[in-house]
């Protein structure tokens, strides 16, 4: 059980690292929000799943309730985080930000 939990945690942390690197490395607003929205949600879901699995490993009713609460956090973030990303991108579109092109002058 411990091996599975460790593997899941490492996997989730890899997603988080990818998200952080993506936010720094991508060129403009819209592509930066892409890793922030997707990879963080995936990483958090996997990490919370690992913690829930670790909690119920000696099985009891109290442990099951705590694990359900942890799963609730994951569900909540799974709903709200993409919505927040959508709202930020919507605000960017209304503020008139142009998406990045490879040759900005070429298609004028």
């Amino acid at each position: 059980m411990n091996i599975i939990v460790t593997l899941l945690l490492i996997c989730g942390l890899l997603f988080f690292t990818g998200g952080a690197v993506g936010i720094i490395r991508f060129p403009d607003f819209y592509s930066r929000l892409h890793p922030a929205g997707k990879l963080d949600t995936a990483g958090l879901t996997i990490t919370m799943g690992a913690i829930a699995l670790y909690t119920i490993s000696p099985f009891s009713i109290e442990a099951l309730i705590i694990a359900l609460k942890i799963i609730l956090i994951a569900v909540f973030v799974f709903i709200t985080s993409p919505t927040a990303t959508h709202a930020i991108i919507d605000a960017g579109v209304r503020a008139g930000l142009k998406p990045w092109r490879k040759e900005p002058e070429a298609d004028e």
Partner: protein
Amino acid sequence: MKAIGVILVGFLGGLLIYCSMDFPPWGDPHSPASSHVSPYYIEHTLEDTSVPNIVTSVLADYRGYDTMFETVVIFTAGIACIFLLRVFKAVEPETRLYRHLPTGITLRIAQGGKFPDDSDQFKRIDSDWVPHDIILQTTCRMIIPFIQIFALYVIAHGHHSPGGGFQGGVIFGASIILFAIAFDLRSAIKRMGERLTAFLCALGVLIYAGVGLVCMLYGNNFLDYSALADILGVDRISARSHGILMVEIGVGLAVMAVMVVLYYNLASAGKHDEGL
């Protein structure tokens, strides 16, 4: 001016760092701050009030007088914000935007034109910032009931876990502010109006002071909840626990209403028509 400020700040900082050498080291269990009155609170909270969360019992029972006047300060801040900003005479804006719902066309009606009534045909929308985002609104419709249930849980379960009236009230107020941001200010005001918020501000403080007054009528000290034992039909220690819960509900109502009042007035600059 800038040089004087930097010199003053540097001098004061150096003086404070010099004085900090006399403090007890961080985390010392026998420092003066934690050796006089706080051991009494820690050791006697279970037998006095049967509340395991020491912070709640000190907040509402041992130092209930302090908390009552903090609540009054919050209430006063809300009233002061209303007096500072609220514009009671209706100032018509130059133009208003309406959306014709069956076709989705946005109409701009200049000043002097005939404004249509709010119906299922026309819906008024903000002129500065137009929230018509269906994803955001659907998510908020789904999330807000859970936030409010969580806020009630935080108020009611503050005896056994972190939480209490202040936190629960702020979370409840934040759910209404979230509604006002995701939809618009007018639909939030339609659901929770100005009169209701002002009434709830006062009601919260009144509940707090009223519980103290009932204790006094039964011959005990002000805010000594063990007098409630006869009314509630429990023993004196449980009565103190229930009295703490009542007081927390009052604090939660006052804080929630004040947060909502502050947001309404700040976001619309006192006009209560177009918000963030």
